[in-house]
């Protein structure tokens, strides 16, 4: 047995556990989400959705996975081979990176980075790079158009996204996600939670809209609108590489929803229940993770609901909404928060 006192080996082991936990958590949620999304959308459309594989079609994700794994991998003749093949891996990697700094319980976090929120904003901006690689590498005009739209959209929405977090950071006085959640643990009269959605309603609206745009979901999913762009940047991808893009997209979905919960909905805190389990040892962590995941699924369900209800926005409307709508609101929120805090 290796000596466990060695701090280096301990660090490596801790890091590996974090990596495995993050990937496991995300994979399970993504598998479940692909099923849930189809089911929820089907219900909204008054259809049944997947119902053949397993009870309630629950084994559908497994069947899909086997299908995608065994599909032929097609590389277009005129593609830029290197970039084309690297793009799905880059998309997957950059989608995973922000998850490291999002915790699902106090201490249940892969890496509690001091600059947590900023780190998340920074590494999620890298996904654009992967999408542009796919768009360019495919050497297909629809992919290219989709890629251009993605770049324009994510650059535009990144600014309100970061600005809307400034208010919270100023109140908490820390960029760490753990500190931000800890700051939301109290409640008025023991029932009304002191979550930042109540302190920063304007920031919540801006952040929510911007995060949906960054995920590229309806009503902001024009980078891959099927009817005009034939699915945009991943038109040419098939089999496992296509699956990696889908996986990355659903990871964005999970991480984005988790961020909304962390920043605005009190993370793993819930009035009445949280104080009860405070001294219960390991049960505390299970309850915290449960509360966090439940809240996350509320956001996820809302977004699916939005997808089933709203239509896609036109590209110029999306960009002008970002620059002329969200950006001034986010700036106003920064100013108001600054003034209120300094009084």
């Amino acid at each position: 047995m290796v000596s466990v006192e060695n701090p280096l080996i301990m660090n490596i082991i801790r890091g590996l556990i974090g990596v495995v936990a993050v990937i496991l958590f995300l994979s399970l949620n993504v598998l479940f989400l692909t099923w849930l999304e189809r089911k929820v959308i089907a219900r909204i459309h008054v259809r049944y959705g997947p119902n053949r594989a397993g009870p309630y079609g629950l084994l559908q994700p497994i069947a899909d996975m086997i299908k995608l794994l065994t599909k032929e991998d097609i590389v277009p003749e005129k593609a830029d081979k290197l970039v084309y093949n690297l793009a799905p891996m880059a998309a997957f990697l950059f989608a995973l990176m922000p998850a490291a700094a999002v915790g699902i319980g106090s201490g249940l976090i892969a890496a509690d980075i001091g600059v947590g929120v900023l780190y998340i904003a920074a590494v999620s901006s890298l996904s654009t790079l992967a999408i542009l690689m796919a768009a360019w590498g495919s050497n297909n005009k629809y992919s290219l158009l989709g890629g251009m739209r993605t770049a324009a959209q994510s650059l535009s929405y990144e600014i309100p996204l970061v600005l809307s977090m400034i208010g919270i950071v100023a109140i908490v006085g820390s960029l760490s996600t753990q500190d931000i959640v800890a700051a939301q643990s109290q409640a008025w009269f023991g029932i009304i939670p002191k979550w930042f959605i109540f302190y920063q309603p304007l920031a919540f609206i801006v952040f929510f809209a911007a995060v949906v745009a960054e995920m590229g979901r309806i009503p902001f999913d024009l980078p891959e609108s099927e009817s005009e762009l034939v699915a945009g940047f991943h038109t040419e991808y098939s089999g496992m590489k296509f699956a990696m893009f889908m996986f990355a997209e659903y990871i964005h979905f999970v991480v984005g929803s988790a961020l909304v919960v962390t920043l605005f909905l009190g993370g793993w805190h819930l009035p009445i229940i949280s104080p009860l389990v405070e001294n219960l040892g390991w049960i505390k962590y299970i309850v915290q993770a449960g509360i966090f995941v439940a809240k996350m699924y509320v956001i996820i369900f809302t977004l699916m609901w939005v997808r089933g209800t709203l239509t896609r926005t036109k590209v110029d409307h999306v960009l002008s909404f970002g620059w002329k709508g969200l950006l001034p609101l986010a700036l106003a929120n920064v100013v108001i928060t600054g003034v209120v805090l300094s009084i």
Partner: protein
Amino acid sequence: MMDSLVFFIISAVVIAGAVGVVMAERIFHAVLALALALLGVAAVFVTLGAEFLAVIQVLVYAGGVVVLFLFATMLTKSDLQLKRPPRGDELAPVSAVIFAIVALFYVASSGFASLGERASVIGSVGSVGGLIFNPQAYVIPFELVGLLLLAAMVGAIFLAKKEAAK
């Protein structure tokens, strides 16, 4: 030992990226190599404990500037291959070596090496913010840079508007 091993691996990545920028025959590959080099530099900042600087490096350079570069590259023809520069080919390595020597001298005389443990304190968000917004330190240069960027932005908008009006 481990620290220097990590440092050498990251440095190799940065150098490979930088060489790739110069040697790549397609512009798109050159920009991607640049992204690799910039991300590597961010990793160097992390090993030095300057988390804030590393994150800003990723946010501004890899996530912003490189994406804009790629955006511009996409407006070019897809089969565009770069030719070797027609002149100054012999001067390039000489000037690169001279620049490297000057940079090495500067770094060696700057006292970065003696920072050691203090680096992580100096590189934190709090201390960087404190320095930038301290009237005795850098607040005036900071505001001036902000003004300069604002002027550049107004200029860019003005140029773009003129194009559109034609």
